[in-house]
């Protein structure tokens, strides 16, 4: 009985002390982290449409993908629209890959940025390399298809990281589809092929 109380007290004291240490650290670091994250997000958005005015990127609405809500934005320089930007994600091998996609006013991909992911280091994380991500530039919705052979027309998967490549491709495709539905009155006919693009390639 006496032993039981001793053990309990010893553990309790350690747990309490540890809790205080963690709590204090969280209290000090979380505001710093929040500010840094907001700043990063702003900078990432700015980088997606560098020609837009400093305060020219405004939220235009929200959309849903994988049961999560993402934002999309309109970037303007003066009154002229220079880009649409959407945040999106794709389900990869071991994580959701978060991305930003920006489109030109004619709805072709302008730029893509991977914001965060938890893919396998050395394999899945190659999605961040320009050799892969650069392939998206200038592509329009019907061209965003993942293939396993060399291609100029579509997107070539990274060997050894097909699942991560597919996740990026699907995430981008979802976002582009959404923006096309939203803004591209003339391009709507393509949206029929969208679902087929998700299945098929396994």
């Amino acid at each position, binding site marked *: 009985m006496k*032993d039981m109380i*001793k*053990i309990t007290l*010893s*553990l309790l*004291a*350690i*747990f309490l002390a*540890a809790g205080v*240490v*963690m709590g204090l*650290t*969280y209290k*000090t*670091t*979380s505001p*710093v*982290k929040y500010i*840094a994250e907001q700043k*990063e997000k702003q900078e990432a958005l700015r980088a997606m449409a560098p020609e837009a005015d400093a305060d020219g990127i405004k939220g235009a609405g929200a959309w849903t993908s994988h049961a999560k809500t993402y934002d999309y934005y309109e970037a303007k320089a003066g009154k002229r629209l220079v880009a649409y930007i959407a945040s999106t994600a794709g389900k990869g091998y071991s994580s959701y890959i978060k991305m930003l996609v920006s489109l030109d006013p004619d709805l072709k991909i302008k730029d893509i940025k991977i914001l*965060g992911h*938890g893919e396998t*280091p*050395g*394999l899945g994380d190659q999605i961040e390399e320009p050799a892969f991500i650069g392939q998206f530039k200038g592509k329009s919705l019907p061209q965003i298809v993942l293939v396993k052979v060399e291609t100029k027309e579509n997107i070539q998967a990274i*060997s*050894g990281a097909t699942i991560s490549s597919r996740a990026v491709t699907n995430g981008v495709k979802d976002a582009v589809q959404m923006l096309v539905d939203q803004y591209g009155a003339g391009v709507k006919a393509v949206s029929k092929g969208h679902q087929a693009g998700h299945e098929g390639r396994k």
Partner: protein
Amino acid sequence: MSAHTKSSYWSIFKNGLFGENPVFRLALSLCPAVAVTNKVKNGVLMGVAVLFVMVMVNATVSLIRNFINPKVRIPSYMFIIATWVTVTDLVIAAYSRAVYKEMGLYIMLIVAFAIVLSRAEVFAMRNKLLPSMIDGAGMGMGFLLALVILGVFRELLGSGTLWGVPVVQAKPLLIMVLPTGGFFAMGLVMGLLHWDDRKYFGGTGSGGGAH
């Protein structure tokens, strides 16, 4: 191990590097050693994080070792380890975003590393503060060294690069960056160390803790 002199501090440190190298001698924490060593850079980042956590955990355990009830040692260690790993994670996430982007994936994994727990039990629980910290540093450096050796081996063969810089112009052996290649690399290096130990040190010299 009561009275420590300068040379015995060095031998504690060296023990972690070679004699009881966590990966190649003690064969602990092999899972992360395989998981993160397909690139040298990943190995180094992971090694540095482990080094820090091990020094802090050993120091804490050593400081409060008379207070920890022997019947609940393991839960106490686990909590101390979890605390330090969480603190490390939070601090890096707030103050060093660039590093966090690279390392964020790995830091939380350190909680479950056998090597951290085992040094708390085997060394820090029985020794004073300074030797415990040196043991943590030595073991952490040993782990870092092992990850770098494996990383160089695997990145060079598997991707033809070192620290991301292209070195070899040839089709890389994809298998070396996969977990299979990790086991190959680890087995070969381990074998080499044991061979060297037998041949030049009669099974005691470079190792000592060889088993």
